[in-house]
């Protein structure tokens, strides 16, 4: 029997669905308009176990696995895409700490994330001059006695101003191979030398916070390093493999919300004496969207199931992210078209879905980066 969630996976999905439909759907438009960080809702999600879905119970997680995580993210994103990306980054940071941190590091930070005592956690990889080409980063960590001194800046950091802990990628070797000289550090909120820069005014995901960060002679103790010296790039790539499942799930959720809105509208709105949902031109657009979202969901769950089984899933994760993000955009475009003028104003949710979907083909690896990853694997 293929592709059916287990009972425990279905339970997590149902928990997320019920919270999203009961609470987030109603709030999402206002959160978006006011560009308000949903701190209270994030805490409630933590209480439901959704800030560490694939993290052990010992560290406060739900220990429900990668498939349950994907299913939950799809549901939360259907309610509010901004909330879902904050949740996705928290989960990604928590998992990265579990996978690459020492027991002490995991004990120190992960329960703070999973319990919601930290409002959020952040992933500090991108810089102003390097996104897709992460190996070109310039933030530097210089040896200083037994510790390190961090200098540089980061950009597009989701939740950076709300994070209790930030994983920061920095160059520890300035000579030699670009990727091999990168290491990972854990920077705590309020650290001396940590500057919170500009809040980005974004087209979509307006209720998620995106900031730049600066590090000015920020001192880190020896135990602030995550993983081994030079392991940073590998950690980033591994984290992004999992992160892409999160973004693919988010995209499926946004696309599904747009489809549901379009179906509601198509039943209600009349033209030429009948509901517009009776016209074949609209029905066929909706059939294509339904089909593409179903395929996106299956690609995403396949990648998650491979991850859960401990099998390689880099290619499959990229396929899921590439396909789901592009089809979510198509879904939102169709939903706006079905709504006509009402799709262009903020009285209906589809213009928000349309804006929210757009970033999914860009962040955590653009569509072009996904194609590079897939092609490299195909042509090995």
């Amino acid at each position: 029997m293929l592709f059916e969630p287990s009972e425990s996976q279905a339970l997590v999905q149902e928990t997320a669905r019920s919270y999203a439909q009961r609470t987030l759907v109603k709030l999402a438009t206002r959160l978006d308009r006011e560009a308000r960080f949903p701190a209270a809702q994030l805490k409630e999600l933590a209480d439901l176990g959704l800030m560490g879905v694939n993290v052990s119970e010992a560290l406060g997680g739900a220990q429900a696995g990668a498939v349950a995580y994907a299913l939950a993210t799809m549901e939360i994103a259907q309610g509010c895409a901004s909330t879902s990306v904050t949740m996705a980054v928290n989960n990604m940071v928590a998992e990265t700490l579990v996978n690459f941190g020492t027991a002490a590091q995991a004990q120190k930070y992960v329960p703070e994330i999973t319990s919601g005592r930290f409002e959020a956690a952040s992933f500090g990889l991108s810089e102003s001059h390097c996104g897709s080409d992460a190996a070109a980063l310039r933030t530097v960590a210089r040896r200083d006695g037994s510790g390190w001194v961090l200098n540089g800046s980061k950009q597009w950091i989701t939740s950076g101003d709300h994070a209790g802990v930030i994983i920061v990628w920095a160059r520890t070797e300035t000579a030699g191979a670009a990727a091999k000289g990168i290491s990972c550090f854990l920077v705590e909120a309020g650290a001396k030398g940590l500057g919170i820069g500009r809040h980005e005014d974004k087209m979509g995901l307006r209720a998620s916070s995106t900031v730049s960060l600066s590090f000015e002679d920020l001192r880190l103790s020896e135990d602030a390093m995550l993983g081994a010296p030079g392991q940073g790039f590998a950690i980033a790539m591994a984290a992004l493999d999992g992160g892409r499942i999160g973004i693919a799930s988010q995209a499926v959720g946004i696309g599904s919300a747009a489809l549901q809105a379009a179906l509601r509208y198509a039943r209600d709105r009349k033209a030429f004496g009948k509901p517009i949902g009776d016209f074949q031109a609209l029905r066929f657009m909706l059939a294509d969207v339904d089909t593409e979202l179903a395929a996106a969901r299956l690609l995403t769950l396949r990648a998650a199931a491979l991850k859960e089984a401990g099998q390689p899933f880099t290619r499959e994760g990229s396929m899921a992210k590439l396909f789901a993000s592009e089809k979510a955009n198509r879904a939102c475009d169709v939903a706006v078209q079905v709504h006509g003028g009402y799709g262009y104003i903020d009285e209906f949710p589809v213009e928000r879905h349309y804006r929210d979907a757009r970033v999914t083909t860009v962040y955590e690896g653009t569509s072009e980066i996904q194609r590079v990853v897939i092609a490299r694997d195909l042509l090995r």
Partner: protein
Amino acid sequence: MQIDLTDEQRLLQDTCRDFAARELTPNAKRWDREHKFPQEAVKKAFELGLGGVAVPEEFGGAGMDNVSYALAIEEISRGCASVGVTLSVNNSLYCDPLVKYGTAEQKERFLKPFARGEKLGCFGLTEPQAGSDAAEQRTVATRKGDVYVVNGTKNWITNGPVADAMVVFTMTDLSKGTKGITAFVVETAAPGFLRQKADEKLGICASPSCTIFFENLEIPASQRLGQEGDGFKIAMGTLDGGRIGIAAQAIGIGRAAFEEARDYSKVRQTFGVPIAQHQAIQFMLADMATELDAARLLTLRAASMKDRGVRHSRESAMAKLYASEAANRVADKALQIHGGMGYSKELDIERHFRDARITEIYEGTSEIQRIVISSALLK
């Protein structure tokens, strides 16, 4: 959530892949060019149990599931799309309704030898004026005592020129519309079953199809499938399964085109490097592989639902719609990657390109699939 195949499914997949590489791939171009029905190869496929993959063993089948069936059709179609559709019709369109609706006596005579692969079946639904609009049946069956006398025309009948029996749809009561449609199973050797010459087609040239006239064809009432008026329901339910077969066929064709393009891109050089090093080619290959995987997941999901006995009309339609359109995009890009060589009959690519085209048309056009899907969405 289970996504892995079982050992049994994997074994069948491997067996079919080996068979296709050995018996089909090396010959498919010649069969296509000569418009030759590869009787020997089909017979060998039947010997592997591919006559009735999902037909229970007690009725002569392999007793496997529909996921296995979809995997088998993909592998066979990877080698030769014509053989793929030959098998798909026998499995999905002929054997399946007999499993579901056949009486014990009908199963003995009309199912067992076909599921065992000793005989070949076909499916007579389409008529000159009734393709997508299958309810417009004009073949009339009139009851006379213990027999029905049938007159009318069926066309585009895959396997028609070579089949031993047909599941056929007729009107027993023109006044009742779809409720007046009745299904039968009949031997093609029966008097009044008149086969016309084989169709000349763009692709799947080694799969013979033809028009068939019924001239006072007498079918015993004992060969009626289900009750009078059940025909439309039988046809639609059968096509829900058939679409899984065609989706799998489309994926097999797409995979052939993709794999040949991938291999070609590694050896063909332009501007001093293999074309696989150009990002434009890499990105085409990445999209092709992604779409084929999406198509396969949709197809296996529909097959898995059929195995569980849950309604899968929408999911089969999604699989068929997406897989057929993806296969055409993939074949188109594969031809582009091959450049002029893709247009030459020296290679297999132009055949894949032609073979793929039919998958958007038969067993329900893409437009019919969209009607099925949107009806489920907007009910």
